[in-house]
């Protein structure tokens, strides 16, 4: 049980968590100096407040608090690792604005609040002078998703006469219309096939690190976990597998697509999309393993893709913006630490043993195969292709003949090195000692599963698996207990 005696009012902390980055963003628009320090301080305050919230959260209901802490830490890392040339008040202000909106979405239990956070998070990517891409597709997809969500919330509130998510729980307010609109919002925001192309466009045209933050907000998965599953448990039972199949199709589609992609940014975007589509598939699997795997994978994908995009940006700053995966660049010779971090983050994304994703993939594949024995095979196949693509990207960027044309380029600077090292430590230590993270997410998974099956005590109430047989110890063997 969490010790809550000394924790101030929850609403106050949420106000600090979301307000600090917005306040800092406003400060930066007025006082355009020391952007990195302001950004770091604001995200640090958000992280500290999120940690307080997480500490106070009861067991099994800490998913959003944990995500808030993760996203705040991610932004804190982003402000540190952001190259000097990108570290202007406009970019840091945009990142902080995105942080505030994302935290607001995680913490909101009100439909209007959630809608406002959803729309606000897209604004930096819609306005000219912000992070808007040259291609029209990102702006269109984000706008359509916002429109669909606004319409869905309009229908839901019209039917349920309230904006409180708790009051609407389990009532299927708005029926099929609202459900369809919410799924549309998920498809466009998450980049589910056939609305997937905008993700790669955004990654290629927009600033790398803010785009990685936008993608790692995982608003689509958030909408599923926060709104669709609790509000539409009965509809979910019949129609949700459709979304799951689309998610698996997306995972496979973009994995195949990535095989011949030569733009490193687009390639990374496809890999991030493919792996994050697995999260949706896991959430839909209805097995405690699948949902837990999806929630743990959420963490892994977030940290790994953020690390990969950050390293790619650091390479672009050092070696030129036109990096390509069509020839071997041999950058490991110049930046060996960036190469090692890239390899670890990349392999962590696709289930390297010893990293947290090995556990999450194990649970995810197991859960998905349990619920969809035929279509579930898609996930290991997509993961295998993604592993090939990430290794190809690593090989072309870092291996090969030493690149000439410049005398010396710095490897990771201390602030970059320690930030990346923190990310590497998270995925590696999380992988070596996964029980704490998995146990917490397992409790959260039960909450999600209970929301989709109101009658069930926990996710395992559904007869999924024969109980594991205890280990049989052959007489004469030494066992740990010394029997």
């Amino acid at each position, binding site marked *: 049980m969490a010790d809550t005696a000394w924790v101030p009012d929850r609403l106050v902390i949420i106000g600090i968590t979301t307000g600090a980055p917005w306040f800092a963003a406003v400060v930066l628009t007025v006082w355009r100096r020391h952007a990195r320090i302001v950004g770091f301080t604001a995200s640090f305050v958000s992280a500290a407040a999120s940690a307080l919230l997480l500490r106070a959260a009861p067991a099994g209901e800490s998913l959003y608090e944990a995500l808030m802490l993760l996203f705040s830490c991610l932004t804190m890392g982003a402000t540190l690792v952001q190259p000097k040339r990108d570290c202007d008040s406009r970019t840091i202000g945009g990142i902080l604005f995105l942080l505030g909106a994302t935290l607001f979405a995680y913490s909101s239990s009100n439909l209007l609040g959630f809608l406002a956070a959803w729309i606000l998070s897209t604004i930096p990517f819609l306005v000219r002078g912000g992070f808007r891409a040259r*291609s029209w597709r990102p702006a269109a997809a984000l706008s359509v998703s916002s429109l669909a969500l606004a319409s869905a919330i309009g229908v839901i509130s019209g039917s349920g006469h309230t904006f409180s998510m708790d009051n609407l729980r389990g009532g299927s307010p708005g029926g099929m219309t609202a459900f369809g609109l919410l799924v549309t919002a998920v498809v466009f925001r998450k980049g589910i096939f056939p609305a997937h192309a905008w993700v790669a466009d955004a990654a290629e045209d927009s600033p790398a690190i803010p785009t990685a933050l936008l993608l790692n907000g995982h608003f689509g998965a958030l909408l599923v976990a926060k709104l669709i599953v609790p509000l539409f448990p009965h509809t979910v039972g019949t129609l949700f597998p459709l979304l799951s199949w689309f998610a698996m199709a997306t995972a496979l589609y973009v994995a195949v697509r990535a095989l011949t992609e030569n733009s490193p940014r687009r390639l990374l975007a496809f890999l991030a999309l493919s792996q994050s589509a697995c999260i949706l598939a896991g959430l839909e699997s209805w097995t405690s393993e699948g949902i837990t795997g999806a929630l743990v994978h959420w963490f892994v994908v977030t940290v790994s893709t953020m690390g990969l995009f950050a390293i790619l940006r650091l390479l672009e700053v050092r070696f030129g913006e036109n990096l390509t995966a069509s020839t071997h660049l041999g950058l490991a010779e110049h930046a060996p630490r960036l190469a090692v971090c890239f390899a670890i983050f990349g392999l962590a994304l696709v289930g390297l043993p010893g990293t947290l994703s090995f556990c999450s993939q194990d649970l995810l594949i197991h859960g998905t195969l349990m619920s969809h024995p035929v279509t579930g095979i898609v996930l290991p196949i997509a993961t295998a292709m993604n592993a090939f693509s990430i290794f190809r990207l690593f090989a072309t960027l870092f291996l090969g003949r*030493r690149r000439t044309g410049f005398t010396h380029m710095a490897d990771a600077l201390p602030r970059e090195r320690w930030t990346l090292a923190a990310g590497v430590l998270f995925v590696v230590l999380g992988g070596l000692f996964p029980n704490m993270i*998995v146990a917490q997410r*397992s409790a959260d998974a039960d909450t999600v599963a209970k929301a989709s099956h109101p009658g069930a005590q926990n996710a395992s109430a559904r007869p999924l698996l024969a109980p594991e047989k205890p280990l049989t110890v052959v007489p*004469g063997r030494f066992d740990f207990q010394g029997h």
Partner: protein
Amino acid sequence: MSLPQIALVFAVMAPGAVFALLGLSWLLGWVPSERVLSRITALTFASCMFALVAQLWTLGSTGAAAVVVTFGNWFAVHEYRFPLVLMADHLSLPFLSMTIVLSGLIGQFSATYLHRERGFFRFFVQLHLFAFGSLLAFAAGSFDLLIGGWELVGITSVLLIAFFDQRPAPVENGLRVFAVYRACDIGLLLGVFALHKWAGTASFAGVLPKLPEAQSTVVCLFLLLAAAGKAAQIPFSGWLPRAMEGPTPSSAIFYGAISIHAGAYLLLRVQPLLAQTRVASACVIMVGSATAIYGTIAGRASADAKTSLAFASLTQVGVVFAEIGIGWRWIATAHILGHALVRTLQFLRAPSMLHDYHRMHSAIGGEISPTGSHLEDLFPEKMRVWLYRWALDRGHLDTILDRWFIHPLLALSKLLTRLDSVGRSKTVTRRMKPKLSMRSPAEQGVE
């Protein structure tokens, strides 16, 4: 914990700990000298060997069947558990001993062989990671844990193939090997999932459960896919000559000794299930026999020493597969041990042997006499020519894989690229180009 248990944990974990320490020291900016590195390696494997000898001695004196160390569950979600169990029994002990002895040997050999090589430190770090992965796979008490070690062996194998990364060919070949490994590992994942689903456990620290024949067949066929990929059995044999791009010591330990036999170990582990299903046993025998024949024919047309040895290795592993399929478990184990030791010696001797050969060649001032008659001389001329061409192209295995699998997949990918570019302006559309190498190792100049 008893002494044998401590010894088992130490033997498995020590190379992993050294890998972690070396990696950390590098990140902190300290790289040990060649002498320090080789001494650390020697000390590590010597102490591992000492621990293993202590374990063997205790087991021999007490007559116990196995040492089992249970650490509980690595992680658990309701009924689904990932047991962390290490086990050394009559099957895993020979493999553990082989891994430790040969890794130590390779470490000593490489200290001289790779002296002043650019990637000296990298090689030794990866050698420790490989040893840890192999020991974990061989000492695992469950298929779940075996996957962990199995994947680490695969990753280090690929990284060492791409060791000479200044040339594109090793990197491209490493990529190709990685693709085959990952594709075949899907079989391992699905096999372990099927075991969990039907047997309720993937642990073999106890006794493997009995399954109905149909279910046993499915599990064994999935695991055969994984084993065939790792052991370069037909139809995945094409990657083995490509893997010869790595430094000779790594070729020796991976493709002469340990990695190439990991697939056989997997099948030996699952042999009780394999014995329940005639279909899977027949498949194992067929795959092994076909690979043995393929290996011996293709090896005869290989122009370089390492590739010839790789094909010779392939032939023996094919025979081992057939032995396992027949059910000759202990013969297969003895065959693996003997083969691994002899082949490692041959691989390590190959570079100096070539040197000696050239010296002898020039010393006698002419051609060395041919080695004598061959079995293929009995075939008619036409068939010999056909076989020669078939062997020269390595059974067309890579061509078949490329034509029927890789090219269609890349074509599909390019089609999807075109579909995705609909609606994008031309200024932001980049040219796409497939990167998988379609060149054979011979074209890439494998030495």
